[in-house]
């Protein structure tokens, strides 16, 4: 059977480039699965868990938003950041979450930093949730 070639790239480095039978990606409207022969597709990604299955094994990554492009059995994931679920530092994520929430409280909705901190809250909450499911 044909396989997908999956590539995960972040601005800081190329995280992963592997073959897989199936990829489950946290898309804009919820998780979507990709198998070989998928229609060309481009979706925004929400912070969440990305799972790759190959044979009996599977590996999961936390991706914090970005884009996923599927074309000709190639899955290209441009994530802002990506890390194996097992490598999530929950304590650090929690402290970042609290910090962002605290900052958010002092900001008006029109403030230029408001969006930044809202995104941070969402991201860290998703990170902690992803770690909880490992």
């Amino acid at each position, binding site marked *: 059977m044909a396989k997908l070639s999956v590539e995960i*790239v*972040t*601005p*800081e*480095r*190329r995280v992963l480039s592997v073959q897989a039978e199936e990829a489950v990606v946290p*898309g*804009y*409207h919820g998780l979507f699965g990709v198998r070989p022969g998928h*229609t*060309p*597709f*481009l*979706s*925004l990604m929400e912070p969440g868990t990305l799972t790759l299955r190959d044979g009996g094994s599977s590996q999961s990554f936390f991706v914090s938003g*970005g*884009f996923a*492009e599927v*074309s*000709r059995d190639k899955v*290209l994931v*441009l994530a*802002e*950041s990506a890390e194996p679920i097992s490598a999530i530092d929950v304590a650090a994520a929690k402290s970042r979450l609290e910090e962002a929430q605290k900052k958010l409280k002092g900001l008006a909705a*029109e403030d*230029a*930093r*408001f*969006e*930044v901190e809202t*995104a941070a809250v969402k991201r860290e909450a998703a990170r902690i949730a992803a770690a909880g499911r490992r």
Partner: protein
Amino acid sequence: MASLRDIRKRIRSVKSTQQITKAMKMVAAAKLRKAQDAILAARPYAQMLDLMISELVARSEAVAHPLLVSRPPKVAELVVLTSDRGLAGGFNSNVIRRASRFLFENAKTYEKVFLSTIGRKGHDYFKKRPVQLRKDFAGLFAKVSYRTAADLAQELSARYVAGELDAVFLVYNEFVSAITQTVSLVQLLPFQGPLGAPAKAGKAEPSPVDFKYEPARPEVLDRLLPQALAVKLYRALLESVASEQGARMSAMENATSNAAEMISNLTLFYNRTRQAVITKELMEIVSGAEALK
């Protein structure tokens, strides 16, 4: 005339300075390598993102996006990217000079030009001048990550969209090679990117079938553009860090060889002085013995 002890002291002090500059050069070289690796590692993402945007733009008819709209120039912001540390040759002063020139040249073009500084050196300089310093992004170099660049980009674009700013510029050191850095001034907003050349998309052998987008194209573009801006900023940050290390490395290299030259001159002078002292003593002894005869 300087006494022998004084010269010896001088030599010792120059030697220890040389040791310091040598060590700094090594440290800079090591950091430079790391910074160069980071630039290389950031490349695939930037390329793929550019490709995505150009493909998207090639497929959609009219692109109207708040970050692309240019308005009559009234308020501009110049982001000055310097370093936190000195002793890097002309690294910081070049950027500062370019920024000052920009302010001077554009005093009439814009009603107001705000300054933002990244890096302590730029901030230290401009806080004493009659300029509108808006914000200092301090402590950014402790850990240069994409996150910081993304946050910065988001803040700038939010203010741009809100109409507080009509143009955003960035002045930074572009990394050419370990010994060459060029100051470059680029416009960040209104956005000028791969959009200027959508024809390039043809190179990427666009798939015959159109993509399905989720959500619709405008929303996707909405997210892609700020991302591209963040990538631009991130690259500038990385280049600046690499340039800083490169500039420091060559500055310290020069300092080390200057110190070596100084040591050899001083040593020569020391030996001459020593000779002179010996000769003088000898003459005194000889003339003393002569007098006794």
